[in-house]
């Protein structure tokens, strides 16, 4: 199955991860499927078939969201007084387990379809143009919070390092073992930034020091913190939560 656009994932991209997810979901919601079967009188006892439908629908929703994504539509911005204080900490672990790194020794590693792969230090990133934004972070759980981030427009960075901006994905690896990926159209959106600052100061450890991707057009879990490396690719890179079953595109 060949997708029409460069940013749209194909079924093959999901193959292995989906098989894993199908097994996981089958176990986890077997009980509820049973309950639904009782409620409706429909025969939903074959959990594998149900899961295949759910995963096919999630891939369909990736495509619909990619089509709905307007590269010129800006996320609403807010005034300083609207900022949520304190901005909540959120990760797949508790705040006490936040990992830190020596900011001076830290380097952003580049790989994949990028012409200039030399690593970047925080100081070098600060020599690039900086923009700031006050936008709403919407979590997949439903809560939201408004914050202010400042950093390098991701498009500027990708162009500067000679990234193949016709590739489909940009993937991120983080030193807290998190990972995620976004479509190229979103990577090039004017509000997608490599954030170095939260409010007026360098990112503190709990908000992703030293580097976080801020994507106000996607759900919170598509905004990786503690970035160690990024890569440009045509092979579906998945993500920490995405591989567990959350929708990959997850656009806002």
């Amino acid at each position, binding site marked *: 199955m060949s997708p029409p656009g460069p940013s749209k994932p194909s079924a093959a991209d999901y193959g292995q991860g989906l098989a894993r997810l199908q097994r996981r979901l089958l176990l986890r*919601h077997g009980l509820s499927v049973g309950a639904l079967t009782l409620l409706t009188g429909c025969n939903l006892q074959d959990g594998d078939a149900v899961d295949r439908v759910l995963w096919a629908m999630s891939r369909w929703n990736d495509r619909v969201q990619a089509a709905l994504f307007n590269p010129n539509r800006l996320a609403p911005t807010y005034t300083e007084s609207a900022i949520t204080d304190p901005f909540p900490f959120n990760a797949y672990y508790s705040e006490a387990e936040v990992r830190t790194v020596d900011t001076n020794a830290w380097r952003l590693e580049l790989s994949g379809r990028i012409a200039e792969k030399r690593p970047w230090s925080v100081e070098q990133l600060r020599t690039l143009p900086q923009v700031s934004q006050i936008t709403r972070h919407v979590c997949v759980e439903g809560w939201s919070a408004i914050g202010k981030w400042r950093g390098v427009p991701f498009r500027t960075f990708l162009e500067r390092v000679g990234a193949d901006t016709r590739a489909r994905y940009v993937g991120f690896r983080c030193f807290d073992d998190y990972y995620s990926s976004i479509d190229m159209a979103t990577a090039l959106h004017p509000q997608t930034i490599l954030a170095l600052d939260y409010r007026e100061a360098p990112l503190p450890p709990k908000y992703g020091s030293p580097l976080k991707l801020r994507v106000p057009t996607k759900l919170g879990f598509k905004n990786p913190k503690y970035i160690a490396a990024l890569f440009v690719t045509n092979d579906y890179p998945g993500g920490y939560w995405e591989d567990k079953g959350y929708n990959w595109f997850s656009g806002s």
Partner: protein
Amino acid sequence: MVSINRVLPVPKRAANTRPLVVRITHWVNAFAMICMILSGWRIYNASPLFPFIFPPWATLGGWLAGALAWHFAAMWLLVANGLVYVAYGFLSGYFRRTLLPLTRVQLWQDFSAALALRLEHRAGAYNAVQRLLYIAVLLLGATAVLSGLAIWKPVQFAPLTALLGGYDTARLVHFLAMAGIAGFIIIHLALVVLVPRTLLSMITGRPGHQHATEVRL
């Protein structure tokens, strides 16, 4: 007073039978709506708006990602089916025939009768309270879909989200629409228990009895 269905060339059969389209969309909607509500409860539990959560055994999806997968799969069925139903309802005259007229006097009479538990069930015709409830639940369904779109895509559908008072308010509206629909379902099912042959008529399309019967407790 001349009622509308006397003026229009409505086939005589239509007044007493449920059209096939209505029966099919009713049951598809019942399935899709239950999927949406039960998976929605699990999503709500991940970040409750109020100091309570829904009992996990009553939810669908098993965990947040599973519930989201159900919610965003069933939404297509709910909306596609709902559009067929609404288009049919308007174009065929089914809404006008069954939900109108709705006057305040009639509503007051039927509501008083219902409170006194003396409201009769007329096969194939809705009383004013039923008409009001069916119109209300249609509006609640539309509100649920629109507020759902507003919180699914607060950037791409930013004007809609703003119209609903912003992301947080739209989330509350989505919850309240669900609560209203859930309330409707409880009343709806209670009345089916009182007049069980309506269940059969929603399957076969034929009313159980031709003559009006009184439901008394």
